[in-house]
């Protein structure tokens, strides 16, 4: 399980930059990030190398945010691997609410972040299929 921070931001120029600067200028590294827009507002989901510090910085900046657990999966960086993971979850009737993926420094490996309907069950079924679950990224 990986800890993720979600931040509410207005959907207007400059807001992502301001958010990233709050984090980045204070020495926290954003390891992964997803930006979602919904009309007038947006949502930033991110995983940093120091969530404790990051949330303190967000709190000081007066932003609305929430910490939560998501599933981090290490997969092969080749065609079909994401489909395989999705199929395993689907067979177990687990719903994927959202997901984002990125490649890593580890050669030929990619990381998939998943928000699922049943976190514990997901870990069980993926582990029993031999998929590596990450504790941090």
């Amino acid at each position, binding site marked *: 399980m990986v800890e993720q921070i*979600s931040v*509410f931001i207005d959907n207007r120029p400059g807001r992502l930059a301001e958010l990233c600067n709050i984090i980045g200028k204070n020495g926290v590294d954003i390891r992964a990030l997803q930006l979602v827009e919904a009309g007038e507002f947006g949502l930033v989901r991110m995983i940093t190398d120091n969530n404790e510090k990051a949330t303190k910085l967000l709190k000081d900046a007066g932003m*609305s945010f929430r910490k939560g657990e998501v599933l981090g999966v290490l997969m092969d960086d080749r065609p079909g691997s994401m489909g395989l993971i999705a199929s395993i979850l689907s067979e177990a009737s687990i719903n994927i609410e959202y997901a984002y993926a990125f490649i890593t420094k580890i050669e030929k490996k990619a990381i998939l972040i998943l928000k699922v309907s049943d976190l514990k069950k997901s870990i069980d079924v993926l582990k029993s299929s031999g998929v590596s679950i990450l504790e941090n990224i």
Partner: protein
Amino acid sequence: MQKKIEEIRKSQGKLLVKNVKYSWDNIPYYKQKMKEAGLKPEDIKGLEDIHKLPFLSKADLRYHYPYGLIATPLDNVVRFHSSSGTTGIPTVVPYTKRDIELWAELNKRCLETVGATHKDIVQVSYGYGLFTGGLGLHYGAERLGAAVIPTSSGNTMRQIKILKDMKTTTLACTPSYALMLSEVIKSNEMKVDELSLKRGVFGAEPWSENMRKRIEKGLGLEAFDIYGLTELCGPGVGIECSEHNGLHTWSDHFIVETIDKDGNKTDVDGEGKGELVFTTLQREAMPVLRYRTKDLSWITWEECACGLLHPRIGRITGRSDDMLIVRGVNVFPSQIEEVLMELKGVGDHYQIIVDRDILDKLMIKVEVTNEIFSDSISELISLEKEIKKRLFEMLSLSVDVELVEPGQIPRPEGKAKRVIDLRKDM
């Protein structure tokens, strides 16, 4: 001329004396209020004594909901109307048969003042129902002998088809709806000369000279402002003449005064500036004595070039309370706050923005606190929808809701400016 005006004011005084006695005899609350002010009906001997009478407010009317201020037996009441957009306790206004007839007469006079005759075709695009606009103009136009088309509000394409095919000459609706009709006509590449419109009678919401120009050009007619309040009868209290310099109020039916924010009379011999205060002179079912409208304007008895001797009030320039009129609906910011406060985590920081595109738009910005923020977009969208739904239930108005980051709503001197009305320069 001065002599004639003095005569009119004298007869107003006589009607006032009669009405005060009638109210004392028939409405226990009025009697109690007058007693509390140390007054007896005989203390009101003419117009010069009107300042002695206590004011009546919207709160008084609501407090006596629904039948508490009716002066006649309920048997004599033939109609009720109610004010729009108010929550909880509405303002109910009763009419006797005579009240309905006199109200029709006032609207007939208004239509005559703007040049309409029995030969005209009058399309009433005000809402029909509890709202007074539709039926008020309808009865007036019928009494005039004109042909009435009771389209009521909405269904814009059908309205335009009727305007064109039935050769409507006189249109009655809210100014923002008139503007909307003109925009739709333009976007459908229809030409103004396909219409037969001569004049429009527009009211129930404040509008400006700029808007008048746009409506007149867009619909090819002369636009007249009409004034009224449900509490006084509805439309027909005042009407612009062709001079377009104020609205004549019917002096045999209403006394109009102005007061300052502390309630001190500011008009001298009927001339003054401030909040308009009305006294009805002929109503049976629910006479009102010194009703505070909260509308800010001026009054004058100065001679008008049109020849009418009825005193004029200016166009309404603002309100002495924080009430907003949005698409003809009365909206109090406190109503919006009430809705927001019911939702957990919402309500501390919000802003109400009113703008006018073609129609009025009401937008509420709500700051998303940590308490209500969730990682799920669909939850945020359903929060937006929930706020919209509850506001609609409260106001009968569709409202745009925008969720914003904490701290985005300015807090000048630590206190948020709750309402921004951008329509001022329209």
